[in-house]
């Protein structure tokens, strides 16, 4: 990593940043003096608008694009030039969507009013006439359910007329017309029945007429909305240009995230750049302008440079596994080349069915080609696809083909579980020792060879001794004892007190239980393989029983075979991926890994809908 300092004219800023964004080689780091650029929020708003417009079209016309659908290919030259047409289109879609929403809203409000009028439909007096006259007062509203009889009795002696209307969830609708002098008393009795006034819509005519009018009006609004929606289907063909527009705005927004330090005419930005891309960055800027100053410096002791790892094509996908745990610390050992073969191998053993392996490899590698996946999805599919190939290998070794056994090259784990466990522990031991060797390598490279030998090498001697002893050579015992002695004597060498040091060393030796549990953890390789195989067998057995049950049974059996094996494959891919990862994270990384690095996130074209081609 090199520290980059860039000085240039403000008028050239966007052009320079665009050029850098295209290749994505520089990560700019904001400083405390940075200002927010004045247009940044406008661009962000416009991007939000475009995003809403795209969502609107997806909802009303085109349908949502599948997650795996290939992205739109746009040449860079075209991508560089935002068009006013797209802006107009965005505005047009926005206006349309607002109009449709408001029409739908109004129609909904009217429908609610119609619903409220329901209990009053039998009222044959126009609504506007339900107001006090010279001698009468009218009450229209709801009383509590079941209180109608009581009210009738109460009102009997008074000069008034009670007309019961419909009954709804809000209560019993009633209209009471009372002589003015008795109105107060009527009110009092009504109150006793939890009376609530009903507010009629401000319209003229009987409830029935008003309801009919409102329904008609609501239908009209709906029709208009539907017409506008049909119009949006016509625009839908232009959705692609909106997608491009959105990505253009997003790219522009990213260029605007930080201003750097500004003077009246110039600006200064700093950041990081990969050491091997220095020349390319210089060239890109020189292409835009010759009024600039660009310097590259090595990181100082107070700097924490971001880290980036580069691997061969086959190993690169496995960075997804490591990055999920933590970004490798800058300058630390990159575990990916060692992790990759182990991950692939463990994945295969955990699935251990050659038939499944073929299906997985074909499906994931084909999906990768067809959908042109990028980024994390691409890595994930590659890891699983390669895992599928490894599954074919291990499945053939163990003789598993879609739950049936056919000619195992090694042995059948179900029949010889002990052999299988030994294989798992052997692979596990190899994995753990690899981790320890990396630790020795890293420490030795840092000039701490003595510490590496005493802290990690001693364990390797102990294990090697135990192994030789276990193989039947008594001499191994002495080697193991030598390793243990080193651990006891030097395990706690910082301790000044000789007794304390020996006890500290003994405690260190107790750490062997940790190694033991690490090793036992690899028995999951067998257990998960078992799960795949036996479930496949269950599916086959049940299908076989169904098969004998006649023609319908045969159909059900076929469906069961397809559905069941698909389910089994999916659930076991999940299991195999997660548990292979875990064996790396806990057992392997625990031995040496230095994480908590900072990811190198350069200013680059991060597009959502489009693929920018050269």
């Amino acid at each position, binding site marked *: 990593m090199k520290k980059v300092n860039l000085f240039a004219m403000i008028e050239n800023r966007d052009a320079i940043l665009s050029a850098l964004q295209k290749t994505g080689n520089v990560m700019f780091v904001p400083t405390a003096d940075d200002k927010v650029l004045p247009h940044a929020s406008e661009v962000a708003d416009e991007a939000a608008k475009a995003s809403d417009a795209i969502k609107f079209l997806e909802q009303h016309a085109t349908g949502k694009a599948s997650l795996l659908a290939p992205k739109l290919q746009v040449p860079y030259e075209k991508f560089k030039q935002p068009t006013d047409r797209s802006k107009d289109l965005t505005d047009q879609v926005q206006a349309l969507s607002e109009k449709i929403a408001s029409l739908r809203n109004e129609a909904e409000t009217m429908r609610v009013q119609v619903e409220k009028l329901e209990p009053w439909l039998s009222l044959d007096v126009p609504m506007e006439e339900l107001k006090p006259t010279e001698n009468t007062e009218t009450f229209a509203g709801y009383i509590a359910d079941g209180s109608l009889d009581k009210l009738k009795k109460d009102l009997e002696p008074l000069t008034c007329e009670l007309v019961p209307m419909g009954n709804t969830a809000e209560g019993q609708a009633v209209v009471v017309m009372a002589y003015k002098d008795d109105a107060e008393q009527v009110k009092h009795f009504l109150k006793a029945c939890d009376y609530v006034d009903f507010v009629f819509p401000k319209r003229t005519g009987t409830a029935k007429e008003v309801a009919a009018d409102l329904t008609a009006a609501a239908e009209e609004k709906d029709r208009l909305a539907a017409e506008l929606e049909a119009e949006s289907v016509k625009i839908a063909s232009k959705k692609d240009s909106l997608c491009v527009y959105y990505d253009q705005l997003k790219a522009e927004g990213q260029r605007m995230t930080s201003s750097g330090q500004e003077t009246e005419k110039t600006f200064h930005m700093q950041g990081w750049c990969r050491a091997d891309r220095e020349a390319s960055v210089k060239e890109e800027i020189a292409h835009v302008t010759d009024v600039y100053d660009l310097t590259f410096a090595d990181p100082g002791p107070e700097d924490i440079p971001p880290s980036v790892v580069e691997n061969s094509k086959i190993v690169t996908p496995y960075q997804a596994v490591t990055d999920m745990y933590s970004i490798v610390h800058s300058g630390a050992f990159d575990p990916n080349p060692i992790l990759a073969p182990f991950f692939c191998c463990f994945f295969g053993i955990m699935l251990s069915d050659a038939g499944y392996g073929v299906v997985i490899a074909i499906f994931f590698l084909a999906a990768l080609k067809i959908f042109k996946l990028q980024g994390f999805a691409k890595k994930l599919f590659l890891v699983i696809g390669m895992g599928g190939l490894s599954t074919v290998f291990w499945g053939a070794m163990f003789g598993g083909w879609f739950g049936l056994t056919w000619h195992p090259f090694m042995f059948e784990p179900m029949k010889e579980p002990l052999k299988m466990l030994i294989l798992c522990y052997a692979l596990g031991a190899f994995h753990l020792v690899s981790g320890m060797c990396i630790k020795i390598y890293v420490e030795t490279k840092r000039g701490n060879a003595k510490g590496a030998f005493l802290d990690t090498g001693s364990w390797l001697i102990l294990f090697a001794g135990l192994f030789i002893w276990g193989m039947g050579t008594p001499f191994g015992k002495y080697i193991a004892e030598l390793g243990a002695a080193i651990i006891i004597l030097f395990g706690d060498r910082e301790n000044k007190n000789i007794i304390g040091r020996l006890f500290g060393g003994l405690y260190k030796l107790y750490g062997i239980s940790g190694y033991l549990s690490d090793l036992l953890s690899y028995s999951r390789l067998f257990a998960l393989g078992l*799960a795949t195989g036996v479930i496949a067998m269950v599916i086959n057995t049940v299908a076989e029983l169904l098969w004998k049950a006649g023609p319908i049974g045969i159909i059900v059996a076929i469906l069961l075979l397809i559905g069941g094996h698909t389910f089994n494959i999916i659930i076991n891919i999940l299991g195999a991926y997660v548990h292979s990862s875990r064996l790396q994270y806990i057992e392997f990384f625990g031995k040496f890994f230095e994480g908590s690095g900072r990811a190198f996130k350069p200013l680059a074209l991060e597009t959502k809908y489009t693929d920018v081609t050269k």
Partner: protein
Amino acid sequence: MLTLGTALAFGGAAIAAGFAGVGSALGVAVAGEAAAGVMSEDPDKFGNVLVLQAIPGTQGIYGLLIAFIILLNIGAVGGDLKELTTFQGIAMLLAGFPIGLVGCISGYTQGRVAACGISLTGKRPEETGKGITFAAMVETYAVLALLISFLMVNGIKL
């Protein structure tokens, strides 16, 4: 004739599939509740959240697996039911316990961890992987119990 031993072996299968299934059912339910909550905020996270909900489902599968092997070994699948001695039957019964017991508890607790992972996904979708890893840590013990149950069943000579 159905011997006491054979009946006990059925008990082993029942414990394995039954209890582990209960654990998974509880776990998947707890995770599902959390998932529906996250979904109400952001329906786009369905895929991530579904993976997390599926994780506590494996214990039930492990239980099913052991139950199936027991039934297969005693001939309950496919016809000829074997006559087990009482001791063989007790051994089969005991073999069902590790996965039944551990599956039940780890299924439920894994569901709780998965539910937390789902909340984590709701707030920080980029950390879904870590939520999955946390949930997978709980699974370890179900995997070990599965292995022991299998070795026990496999070790009973009929």
